[in-house]
């Protein structure tokens, strides 16, 4: 009987492997004719299934030795608040909702300028061999340390430098992340009265939800979220009347600069207002829309099986792309970032999640499994971008500084690259989605929205409702992003308050308003500076800021993998250290090469210093001095990040060598084994 089951399992997994190989082969080798998206879905499903079934099981058994009998902090320290034994599926949902943000939607859309193939391969391989591994091992190591954070683990296992760098990297990443996502919203909403009205309405809707929860139906969050969702849908529907009414349209039509100022004011207010009033209800609403839309998009893609019009590889793999500059290596990797591996996930894996895990064995499903789901979201973004005609994709995503401002000039430039598009075609598309223009909408969000509207309108409602679907997609992304802005500003504020408490203790009091206002101001001014820089950048801002964000994010993953490798070496599993050393080496190669290019590349479109020199040599305008300063500042930030990570690498390598030679303490800082009571109770 047992042999029969084994044989069946071998047969089934053999078929999955064969199917996966065939699908990846079709995706990778197909040239010329458009390909159906279902091949990407099939390749992904097989890779994820094989990765989860075999690779994560190998890691769980051979390296981590997951022990179902070992009590987790959720059991030992259960207090009904932070520490709580929770059903594994519930923890999975909670963890996925926390790690899924706008990054896996925006990055893959931008990287589609290389074609659909590079992004697809990195999203699959990066997730299975790097991202999922990082999330899984960090989650387990945090569980074995009473839910300690990455910075605490770095300090304990690799030394003080590791802890300090992880802390500094988190602050820098937050600042750059907040500026870049704010820029994505600005680019999506500029000169768009419909979109701006819809997003503006989400603020009073969130406040209304907060008051509803506090005063009318205390604690009925799902009820309030449904109510908020209905109101948001009404706002989307009503937005078309705003855009059609000249008077109202004027009120809601803003330039990029004005939108940036409004978002800065919003960020400051959201950080200073009570959590229950704005942050929490917006978070609930965003999660509600996020989970629903991702599920709907997945159903739409599988049900409709759209054709990908983007070629597998474009001519821009040589680094001359209009969306962002730089060759396929390393820029495809740092652009995709979160969809394959995200350093930020290590903060979630060592934050709330380890305090909810009931059994060690569940870390595999939660850590490895949730990252697979996130990677699938990134793949959907690649599909959404690739269903567009390439000419349309480049017209939306290329800055005016490259393709020219007049529609005819832009269409002619893009057509000359071999991606035909006409001004009339773009005008018709803009009209179909209820916008005045779709040119120069850099940042990825509008392209994703057009792709998503395309998929949705083909399955639900037809072309007549394409404008509603487009603005639904814009609202979905902006809601995501504004939630990250609210939460990120507040998290950075708390981190600065914690640090400032060492200098002047009252500054550490999170309820003391002078401290709240001062630290909120510092955080908002920091990301506001970079946002303003992006808004005023003649190359569209995304070209400079998204790579900076990608580098920072991947460098944090480098720190997380250094910590993980150190612990694995100390656990005397050195022969398996390649599991984390491999992705670590890849990330070091990618981030260090990208950083080198962004700082020293002689092309002004890539290197910050070369751009500063080019600006200095060109005729001076009112903006020149500021642009030169911005480029030099970007170069300094990039170099500083790399230097910090070099220190962590050196510190970690010293520990590894010391442990392997036997002259360093190999003790890991795990809490002692305590037998679980859950097994008996069950």
């Amino acid at each position, binding site marked *: 009987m047992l042999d029969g089951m084994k044989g069946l399992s071998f047969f089934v997994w053999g078929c999955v492997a064969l199917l996966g190989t065939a699908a990846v082969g079709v995706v990778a080798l197909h040239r010329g004719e458009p390909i159906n998206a279902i091949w990407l879905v099939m390749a992904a499903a097989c890779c994820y299934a094989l990765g989860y079934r075999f690779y994560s099981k190998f890691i769980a058994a051979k390296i981590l030795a997951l022990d179902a009998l070992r009590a987790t902090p959720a059991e030992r320290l259960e207090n009904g608040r932070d520490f709580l034994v929770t059903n594994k599926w519930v923890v999975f949902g909670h963890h996925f909702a926390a790690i899924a943000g706008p*990054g896996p939607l925006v990055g893959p859309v931008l990287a589609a300028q290389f074609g659909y193939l590079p992004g697809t391969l990195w999203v699959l391989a990066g997730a299975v061999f790097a991202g999922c591994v990082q999330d899984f091992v960090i989650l387990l190591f945090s569980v074995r340390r009473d839910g300690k954070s990455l910075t605490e683990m770095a300090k304990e296992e690799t030394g003080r430098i590791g802890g300090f760098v992880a802390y500094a990297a988190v602050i820098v990443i937050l600042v750059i992340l907040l500026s870049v996502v704010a820029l994505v919203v600005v680019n999506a909403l500029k000169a768009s009265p419909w979109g701006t009205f819809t997003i503006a309405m989400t603020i009073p809707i969130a406040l209304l939800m907060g008051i509803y929860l506090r005063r009318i139906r205390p604690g009925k969050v799902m009820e309030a979220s449904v109510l908020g969702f209905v109101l948001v849908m009404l706002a989307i529907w009503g937005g078309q009347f705003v855009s059609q009414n000249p008077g109202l349209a004027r009120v809601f039509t803003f330039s990029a600069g004005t939108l940036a100022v409004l978002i800065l004011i919003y960020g400051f207010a959201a950080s200073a207002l009570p959590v229950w009033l704005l*942050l*929490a209800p917006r978070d609930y609403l965003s999660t*509600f829309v996020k989970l629903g839309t991702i599920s709907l998009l997945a159903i739409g893609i599988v049900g409709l099986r759209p054709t990908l019009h983007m070629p597998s590889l474009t001519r821009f793999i040589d680094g001359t792309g209009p969306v962002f500059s730089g060759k396929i290596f390393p820029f495809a990797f740092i652009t995709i970032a979160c969809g394959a591996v995200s350093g930020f996930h290590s903060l979630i894996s060592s934050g709330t999640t380890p305090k909810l895990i009931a059994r060690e064995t569940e870390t595999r499903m939660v850590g490895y499994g949730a990252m697979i789901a996130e990677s699938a979201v990134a793949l959907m973004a690649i599909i959404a971008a690739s269903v567009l005609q390439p000419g349309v994709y480049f017209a939306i995503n290329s800055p005016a500084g490259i393709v020219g401002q007049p529609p005819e000039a832009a269409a002619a430039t893009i057509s000359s690259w071999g991606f035909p598009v006409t001004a009339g075609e773009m005008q018709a598309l803009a009209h179909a989605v209820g916008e005045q223009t779709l040119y120069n909408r850099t940042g990825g969000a509008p392209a994703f929205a057009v792709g998503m509207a395309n998929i949705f309108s083909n399955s639900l409602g037809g072309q007549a409702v394409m404008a509603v679907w487009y603005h639904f997609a814009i609202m979905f992304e902006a809601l995501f992003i504004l939630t990250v802005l609210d939460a990120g500003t507040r998290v950075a504020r708390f981190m600065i308050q914690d640090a400032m408490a060492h200098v002047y203790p009252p500054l550490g009091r999170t309820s003391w308003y002078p401290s709240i206002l001062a630290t909120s101001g510092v955080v908002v001014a920091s990301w506001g500076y970079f946002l303003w820089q992006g808004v005023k950048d003649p190359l569209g801002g995304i070209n400079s800021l998204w790579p900076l964000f990608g580098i920072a994010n991947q460098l944090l993953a480098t720190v997380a993998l250094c910590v993980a490798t150190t612990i694995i070496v100390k656990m005397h599993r050195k022969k398996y250290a390649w599991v984390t050393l491999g992705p670590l080496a890849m990330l070091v190669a990618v981030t260090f090469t990208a950083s080198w290019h962004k700082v020293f590349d002689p092309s002004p479109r890539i290197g910050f210093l070369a751009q500063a020199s080019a600006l200095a040599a060109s005729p001076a305008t009112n903006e020149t001095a500021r642009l030169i300063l911005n480029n030099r500042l970007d170069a300094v930030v990039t170099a500083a990040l790399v230097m910090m990570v070099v220190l962590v690498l050196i510190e970690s390598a010293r520990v590894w060598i010391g442990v392997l030679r036997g002259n360093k303490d190999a003790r890991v800082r795990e809490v002692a084994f305590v037998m679980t009571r859950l097994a008996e109770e069950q």
Partner: protein
Amino acid sequence: MMKQITFVARTVLAALREIFDEAAYARFLQRECQESSTDAYAEFWRERGNAYGRRSRCC
């Protein structure tokens, strides 16, 4: 079959209740032996406001 559907529906509902903090509020009420009210909800947020604000959301 019906049993499995019920199980899945229950699990999804439990996950949503946890994600949307309804479960946390229910635990709070149970721990504090209180009925749901505006005062109880305000107290719930006083207790967890800081921790909630420190929760990272990913990019």
